[in-house]
């Protein structure tokens, strides 16, 4: 499974929208920063077709270090949950990727 980076997407968007990468880059970065900021504030973000980001509280629990089998107390944490949207679901409905990676 190959990894696509932000830079590759930025270059592609710049090419398709006829916008300089120097303009696209801060816009994309600001988008990611704003998502984080909203999640920190406890807000939920919904992007039609793409999906929903929201935070959940994961309760404190007792875990075990798998190596030493020692019990460890894990504090309550807030985690991000992503739920895929309609289009994403449709496009991923096949069990295997359409294009071999």
């Amino acid at each position, binding site marked *: 499974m190959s*990894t*696509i980076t932000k830079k590759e997407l930025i270059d592609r968007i710049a090419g398709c929208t006829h916008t300089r990468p120097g303009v696209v880059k*801060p816009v994309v970065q600001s988008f990611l920063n704003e998502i*984080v900021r909203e999640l920190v504030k406890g807000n*939920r973000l919904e992007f039609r077709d793409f999906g929903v980001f929201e935070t959940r509280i994961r309760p404190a629990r007792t875990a075990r270090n798998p190596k030493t089998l020692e019990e460890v107390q894990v504090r309550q944490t807030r985690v991000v949950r992503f739920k895929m949207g309609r289009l994403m679901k449709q*496009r*991923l409905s096949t*069990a295997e*990727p*359409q294009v071999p990676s």
Partner: protein
Amino acid sequence: MSTTTKKELIDRIAATTKTRRAVVKPVIQMFLDEMVRELANGHRLEFRDFGVFETKRRAARRAQNPKTLEPVEVSARRVVKFKMGRLVKQKLNGRRP
């Protein structure tokens, strides 16, 4: 918990980056569309500090309609998994990044 929409974010991004909304909007839309496309193609997306998106295969299983208790066959499918980055984790838990 209130829901923030794409439009609100676009307005805010336009203001902070001093870029026209007519430029911001297609860029953000294409960013989201490209992410869907790459995930559908079986690729993994990594945005430093933000997090990683990847797909996982779910095996076919037999489920049950909780209302009618009728068994339903659920075919194998892929789901998107998002793993938040280190910075997000720290920010969400009130620790200094």
